[in-house]
């Protein structure tokens, strides 16, 4: 590696509830566009539900938000922000690209495997190839990292960042990075909010795919009864059932499968658009989030106590089914409001 000088871009580090919406919000605020994390989440219609079994995996996964990268793309499309994105097959060139951007005073976001972010305590870290962070400087052999889960600006060895950017395996980030190159000073945020709400309602209610949106929640409710027969043994079943809790609460979801963050977005939208009915919807979404949290605890208790009686699965299935009903009603009502916005 060529010798590079130390430098720090004056980037305001903040903690956020979720890495992608937080990273995008951090970059836009740095570029002079004041926007909150829930607003990024809502405008990009980040809320979703998917129950999906990839052919390569032995067990289905549940996903409670849109797919990685879509928050950045959604904001780009609806606010007119232009992001430059790149992937580098060659690791050295991937690192040089970061150094070159830092030399120009540009903070740059990277997608990494969370496990190698060793400034965070070991109990927080797991292999997860969809973590986002922002590189804002360098010091000796380290990069300075703004990570929304870290209380302060962190230092990360170049070698750890390289491992994180090129971990191999499924969904390898392959050195993916992005940064804004054009940020409008006065975008039409009100219009973007309306479009974001309409798109979220469409995704939850009308996507013609059996495993997405409300259909996905119903499929989850039905299929969970088959899980005991799909698992190799009780250890495996325990692991999979407890993953429900992890996906709803621990994977940077902002709690309750992103429903609380969406509720905050609706409250902010209500204030901005002067529409009190959106505040009422925000309060309803908080209650929906509470019920996801109850499902999460129910699943966690089952997994932890290895309590796999059929009755327990039936109870869990019933709770998920009622959640599908609640979200269907919620998004139907939100869609009606959205038509009048």
């Amino acid at each position, binding site marked *: 590696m060529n010798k590079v000088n130390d430098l720090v871009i004056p980037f305001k580090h903040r*903690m*956020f*509830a979720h890495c992608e919406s937080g990273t995008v919000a951090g970059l836009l605020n740095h570029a002079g566009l004041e926007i909150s994390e829930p607003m990024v989440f809502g405008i990009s219609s980040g809320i979703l539900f998917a129950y999906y079994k990839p052919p390569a995996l032995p067990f289905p996964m549940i996903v409670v938000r849109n797919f990685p990268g879509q928050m950045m793309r959604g904001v780009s499309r609806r606010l007119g922000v232009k992001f430059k994105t790149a992937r580098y097959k060659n690791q050295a060139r991937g690192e040089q690209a970061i150094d070159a951007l830092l030399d120009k005073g540009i903070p740059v976001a990277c997608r990494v495997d969370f496990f190698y972010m060793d400034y965070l305590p070991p109990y927080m870290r797991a292999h997860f190839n969809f973590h986002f962070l922002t590189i804002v400087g360098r010091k000796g052999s380290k990069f300075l990292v703004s990570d*929304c*889960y870290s209380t302060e600006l962190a230092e990360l060895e170049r070698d750890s960042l390289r491992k994180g950017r090129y971990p191999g395996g499924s969904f390898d980030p392959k050195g993916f990075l992005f940064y804004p190159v054009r940020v409008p000073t006065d975008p039409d945020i009100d219009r973007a909010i309306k479009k974001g709400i309409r798109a979220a309602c469409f995704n939850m209610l009308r996507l013609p795919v059996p495993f997405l949106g409300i259909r996905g929640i119903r499929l989850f409710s039905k299929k969970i009864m088959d899980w005991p027969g799909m698992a190799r043994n009780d250890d495996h079943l325990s692991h999979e059932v*407890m993953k429900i*809790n992890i996906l709803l*609460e*621990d994977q*940077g*979801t*902002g*709690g*309750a499968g992103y429903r*609380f*963050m969406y509720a*905050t977005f609706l409250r902010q939208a209500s204030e901005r658009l002067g529409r009190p009915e959106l505040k009422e919807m925000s309060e309803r979404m*908080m209650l929906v*989030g*509470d019920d996801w*949290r*109850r499902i*999460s*605890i129910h699943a*966690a*208790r089952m997994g*932890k106590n290895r309590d796999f009686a059929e009755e327990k699965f039936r109870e869990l299935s019933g709770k998920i089914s009622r959640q599908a009903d609640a979200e269907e009603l919620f998004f139907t009502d939100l869609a009606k409001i959205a038509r009048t916005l």
Partner: protein
Amino acid sequence: MEVQVTKELKQEIKVLILESLNIPDVTPEDIEDDASLFEDENLGLDSIDGLEIVMALQEKYGVRIDDQNQARFILKSINTIAEFIAKELSKK
């Protein structure tokens, strides 16, 4: 109305935690106010216990902790929980 962090509030929180997690062999007096609840030498709680506490606090005091980053700091000790509850109740 300003709500203060009092000994009684901390006692109430300790009882709530022990009851909601069903830990009968520990008494509220065994829990130090500033000890980390997640360390093994203290209560040795895990993240699922943390979530149960979050729900119990919500049900008792009507305060919602809506993100896990925030929960990490609030649930550090009895003192930090009591400070959070007092602050939230003062807003009402």
